[in-house]
């Protein structure tokens, strides 16, 4: 039985332009898999893994491939004993159980790989030799979930084509160094999965069209986050695997030079029952009006990137924390130097979330309650306070900008 909720899962990894030039292997890996559980239940899996590029991680290409393979096996094991309807159990698995299982399997796999290497490598195995990140997306007929650790990104694309970050690596703290990321090789690895774990019933996300999972090389190749989100919004329309591969090669060539991986799946559109007659009538009417020159198409004003960002966050409040928390440093800078807000607001399309923070500082934002609460907490943590104007309860956004109340969907 094939999951009817998701279409065309695909994954592709392309060697980075820098690694190609240096004669190094591709240290990224990715896969899609269809797993069958109890009673023929089907779960689709997307996975991407990114091996660390430093000389200490000289087998990280093997590490990332083994991470994807062992993740698939671990998820299959869970599926064999856990019905997909038991979302509570799956939520727990995503947050902790799967982390422990994948990490254990990965360590066993790299130990076996180390032992089989010829000639025998000197010294004992150090897991950092195989170090890599791992991002997983699970696609069930009635829900989707994600988990993992490291600097991968997950983007949700709506039916209208707008894209927003669903998950990114949280800040590793003020002392985190340059290009540092969490890793499967860390002893505390399993504890780092929890903040990345999410599970969402599809019924609560009627506008969700696709999910795009990528390694950090893709995002770092784009000039801005706005470009990255635009890329994710458009890439789901690619039909040919060759187009995707060529596109990823272009991304690394013109961008970061890093290995790049992308895995994605489209949600099955529910069949429209009223389409044939209604659409035919509408089409006929519009054509007639156009012919006689009565249809005037007003030019739609460009969407306000901040409002688009706000709506995306408010439509799914579970994303708010994941998106805002990494912006603490930016908020502190805004607090110290309010003139930075003008720069962010001058080009909101370059950093919509930054511009949203700037508006919150100026009190010109009407956030939904969940966003407002998180913003207030963030400003409080930064040692400041969100201006009162942004907190006025009598200036709520239209209902469409707010998340639906529980049970209202």
């Amino acid at each position, binding site marked *: 039985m094939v999951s009817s909720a998701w279409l065309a899962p695909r994954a592709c990894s392309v060697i980075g332009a820098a690694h190609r030039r240096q004669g190094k292997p591709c240290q990224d890996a990715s896969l899609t898999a269809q797993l069958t559980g109890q009673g023929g239940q089907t779960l689709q899996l997307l996975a991407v893994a990114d091996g*660390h590029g430093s000389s200490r991680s000289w087998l990280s290409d093997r590490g990332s491939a083994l991470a994807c393979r062992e993740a698939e096996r671990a998820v299959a094991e869970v599926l064999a004993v856990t019905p997909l309807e038991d979302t509570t159990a799956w939520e727990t698995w995503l947050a902790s159980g799967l982390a422990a299982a994948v990490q254990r399997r990965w360590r066993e796999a790299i130990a076996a790989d180390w032992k089989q290497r010829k000639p025998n490598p000197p010294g004992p195995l150090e897991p950092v030799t195989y170090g890599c990140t791992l991002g997983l997306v699970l696609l069930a007929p009635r829900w989707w979930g994600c988990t993992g650790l490291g600097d991968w990104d997950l983007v949700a694309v709506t039916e209208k084509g707008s894209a927003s970050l669903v998950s990114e690596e949280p800040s590793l703290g003020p002392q985190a160094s340059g290009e540092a990321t969490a890793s499967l090789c860390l002893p505390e690895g399993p504890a780092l999965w929890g903040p990345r774990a999410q599970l969402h019933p599809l019924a609560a996300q009627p506008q969700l069209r696709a999910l795009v999972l990528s390694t950090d090389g893709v995002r770092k190749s784009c000039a801005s986050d706005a470009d990255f989100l635009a890329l994710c919004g458009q890439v789901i329309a*690619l039909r040919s695997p060759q187009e995707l591969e060529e596109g990823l090669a272009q991304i690394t060539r013109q961008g970061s030079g890093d290995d790049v991986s992308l895995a994605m799946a489209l949600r099955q559109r529910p069949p429209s029952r009223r389409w044939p007659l209604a659409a035919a009538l509408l089409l006929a009417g519009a054509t007639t009006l156009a012919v006689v020159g009565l249809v005037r198409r007003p030019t739609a004003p460009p969407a306000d990137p901040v409002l688009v960002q706000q709506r995306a966050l408010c439509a799914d409040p579970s994303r708010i924390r994941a998106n805002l928390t990494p912006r603490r440093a930016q908020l502190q800078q805004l607090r110290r130097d309010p003139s*930075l807000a003008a720069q962010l607001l001058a080009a909101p399309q370059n950093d919509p979330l930054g511009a949203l923070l700037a508006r919150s500082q100026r009190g010109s934002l009407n956030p939904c309650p969940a966003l407002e609460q998180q913003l207030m907490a963030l400003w409080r943590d930064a040692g400041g306070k969100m201006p009162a104007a942004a907190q006025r309860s009598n200036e709520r956004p239209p209902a469409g900008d707010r998340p639906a109340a529980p049970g209202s969907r």
Partner: protein
Amino acid sequence: MPFPNVRLSNRPLHFIYLCDCSGSMAAQGKMQALNQAIRQSLPGMAEVARENPEARVLVRALRFADRADWHVQEPTPVQQLQWRDLEAGGITAMGEALERLAGVLQSPPMEERALPPVLVLISDGQPTDDFETGLATLMRQPWAQKAVRLAIALGHDADLEVLQQFIGPEPPGGGRSPRRPLQASNATSLARYIQWASTAVVGAASMPASRVQEQGDSNVNIPLPDLPPTLLDPTDDVGPLVW
């Protein structure tokens, strides 16, 4: 369907010199040696940039004497940089220099996609202003925390303690390390250190290599390359002890 048309970009790598231009730099040809070392390093730096097109190497320089001021203010592609000589005269406003530096390491103007910057502090003396406040201001900037911070001490009057504070905690054990101030005692060793910072370090910082965040290594932002030989190594021959 054509691949999505979005703006792709290589990643800026900001390389910033902080040069002591106090009066003592005029003595024993130190300023002349520094100008020459930087000027001579540029072709090698440009070559490294050419070999790593994924990084856009942009150079700036900040001078400090009585006051701190930009010597090369605009982030300049290394291939286009024409080095103008620095001149010595005045005291050592190192703390003010760090505050000026902090101003450009904010986001914005720092690009969200930038690689960790490389900051090279070169001094032959002691700060005459509030170094601690300047350093604290600098280190509040996330980009300063992420930066590769190097320091070159010219001669034996340089304050190694403040240079070490700029770099970060000293690594355990003895011996030479890029995590300690590099001590240049003549024009040759200075040139070698400048060459090393502008080529080997820039090359390492240009690599698209993510790395694991391990406990206790918060101050090693990129794996630094080996140091060049110096007079401290008895097998080297880099000229006489001058400074």
